[in-house]
């Protein structure tokens, strides 16, 4: 268990984290999503006690908190954060890095070879990290945290520089770790991936952590709530609203138009499909608002002119 209690962090006049309280349970994977510089890393740094909050505290199992240096050591025995690939020792091999983490956390040494195999690192792990590509370094950093085998793992931009295959491999390992009962907190810009695996996803807004389910009700549920149409023309949108006045529409900065459905009745879906096909609109999909859409809606509100979005979680189409 990890409980964040009223954490506030302020740099100068800027409140990066503003009175954040929440609880993470064992076996949960938490996603943190936000543009750069909005507080994701600061939040993780507070959880690691790298940054001292001005207010509030972080409480771990058995009521442990960063109240003194001795507790910090105890907490760091079961909480770890993925290292940054730029911090690797270029003169050491990947295996030496893994040994370093395994011995430092006194985890099972067998984990080293298992992780190397799981991440397909065998062909380069014995070479010096100075020769590694970004993706290789990133995988090594991930592997280092995996071999530390702590109960709580935090990863900032874990998928950076990875090809889709490796993203999938890492995701599967994360799922396995989650199933082992670990709390995994991930900050990532690979939103599709995060959406696929995270149990809860939080967006950062003005120093607050906002659950995606709060932004859009039932975001994490798998119901047909939206039709996502690519590059829909203004004329078509106008006609659609005339024919279906109960619909709410929103066009995002990425060119995606979201048609929010009041219900998922078959007749409505059928009528809408006919409407779109008749107007030669073929690039559309039924489903729900994706995390990508949500991100676009949430962090590009000015460009779509929807300033109400974050305030009342309600979408209005503006022509």
């Amino acid at each position: 268990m990890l409980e964040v209690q009223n954490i506030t962090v302020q740099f100068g006049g800027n409140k990066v984290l503003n009175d954040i309280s929440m609880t993470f349970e064992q076996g949960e994977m938490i996603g943190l999503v936000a543009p750069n510089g909005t507080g994701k890393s600061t939040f993780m740094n507070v959880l690691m006690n790298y940054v001292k909050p001005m207010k509030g505290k972080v409480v771990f199992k058995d009521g442990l908190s960063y109240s003194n240096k001795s507790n910090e050591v105890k907490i760091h025995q079961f909480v770890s954060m993925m290292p940054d690939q730029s911090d690797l020792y270029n003169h050491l091999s990947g295996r030496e890095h893994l040994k370093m983490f395994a011995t430092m956390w006194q985890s099972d040494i067998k984990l080293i070879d298992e992780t190397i195999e799981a991440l397909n690192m065998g062909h380069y792990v014995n070479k010096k990290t100075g020769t590694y590509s970004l993706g290789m370094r990133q995988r090594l950093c991930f592997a280092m945290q995996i071999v530390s085998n702590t109960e709580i793992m935090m990863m900032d931009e874990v998928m950076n520089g990875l090809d889709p295959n490796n993203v999938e491999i890492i995701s599967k390992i994360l799922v396995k770790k989650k199933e082992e009962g670990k709390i995994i907190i991930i900050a990532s810009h690979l939103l599709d991936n995060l959406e696929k695996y995270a149990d809860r996803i939080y967006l950062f807004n003005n120093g607050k952590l906002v659950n995606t389910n709060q932004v859009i009700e039932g975001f994490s549920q798998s119901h047909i709530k939206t039709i996502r149409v690519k590059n829909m023309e203004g004329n078509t949108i106008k006609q659609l609203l005339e024919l279906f006045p109960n619909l709410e529409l929103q066009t995002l900065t990425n060119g995606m138009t979201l048609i929010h459905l009041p219900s998922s009745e078959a007749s409505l879906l059928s009528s809408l499909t006919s409407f779109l096909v008749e107007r030669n609109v073929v690039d559309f999909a039924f489903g729900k608002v994706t995390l990508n859409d949500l991100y676009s809606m949430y962090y590009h509100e000015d460009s779509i002119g929807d300033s109400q979005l974050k305030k009342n979680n309600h979408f209005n189409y503006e022509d």
Partner: protein
Amino acid sequence: MWSYFKFEFKQFFTNKKNVAIYFLLAFATFFYVFKIAPTYNPIERVDYDEIEARYLTRQEFLDHMEGQDLNNVHPSVIYAIEIFKEINPIDKGRLDALDEGNFKKYADLTSDWYYFTNSITYRNEVFSYNSKYFIKNNKYAEDDAFYAYLEQAVRYDAYSKADYELSLEIFEQRTALQTFERLLKGVLPIILIVCVLLLSIDIVKKDQRHPSILKGFPISDWKKLLVKMFVALLGSMVLFVPLIVGVFIIGLQSGFGNFNLPSPVYAAHLDWRVDGKFEMMTLGTFLGQSFILLFTWFIVMINVVLLCSIIFRNEMVNFAVGLLLIFGENFYSSRYVGYFWDVQNYPTSYIQVGQIISKRRNFYYMNDQLDFTLGLQLLLGLAGVIIFLMILIALNRRYKLIK
């Protein structure tokens, strides 16, 4: 903690800068062993030809003066005859001893020779010490020669009572252990302490290049610092490896010597006319005490670097403070200044490790208080205070070793 020790140990010995320091020291050692040591030319040599030349000249003079009326001669001639009559039998005995290969007899007579020669030469306008003392405008050359003669006298006295085999190499202090002794009385301690400063200078700062790897290690900052100190100390001990190899090579060239060889210690309280000015210490004791004092200096230097690192987080500051400690003595060091100032209370006065043990520094400063035990107490006290401050800072809840 063991894991962290292994990690730091590996870091230390794979650090390119540290490897370079070991390499340079090894290079300097071998250069010394093969180029400098063989050409060592001590002022006080066993020079048969020189002894013979002096002896014959004096004997010729004595033979010439034999039977002459000395009533009308200059007083200095009478003085010379008196002195030559004293010293020539000694020199004759020395030459005979060398011819016979009887080194004990040579040592015994040479001890007498130094005592006698010193007594007639010191502050005497007629006689002069070996001219090699009078170099580099040394105002205190006569005092230095006085010191050297009395030291030689004690040395040879000890040789005359030796129960080990003597050799010319031993007399001229060319054996491996004696070479080490000479070096410890010279620049070697400073070279080693500078090496320790350079080895440890980045032991904290290097971590700043890998913060995300190291910050989360489940070990407290004060333990990290202690481990770093221990590793740096071990690293400092490795500095002795090339030196030991060098000593071994010199041993093969000139003999190893032994730990029972004499190593005179200046004794300010003795009256030089009656008791000489030196007490005897074995070479083993000298090397042992030198090592202890040197090791204590290593501890002080490493902890100074650690403390500066956690306060200033700048390698240049570490370097500056370290150099200040090593060369701080030069700010007040002056011949006989210890008579006026309590230099014995400054830890920096103990940097010339070999000269502290042999108390040559006491002679230099004209200070009776400079002493191995006091130096050890001061340096250990200093190290203790530094370690205490370091741990106090590291235990502070707001302090982060790695930012």
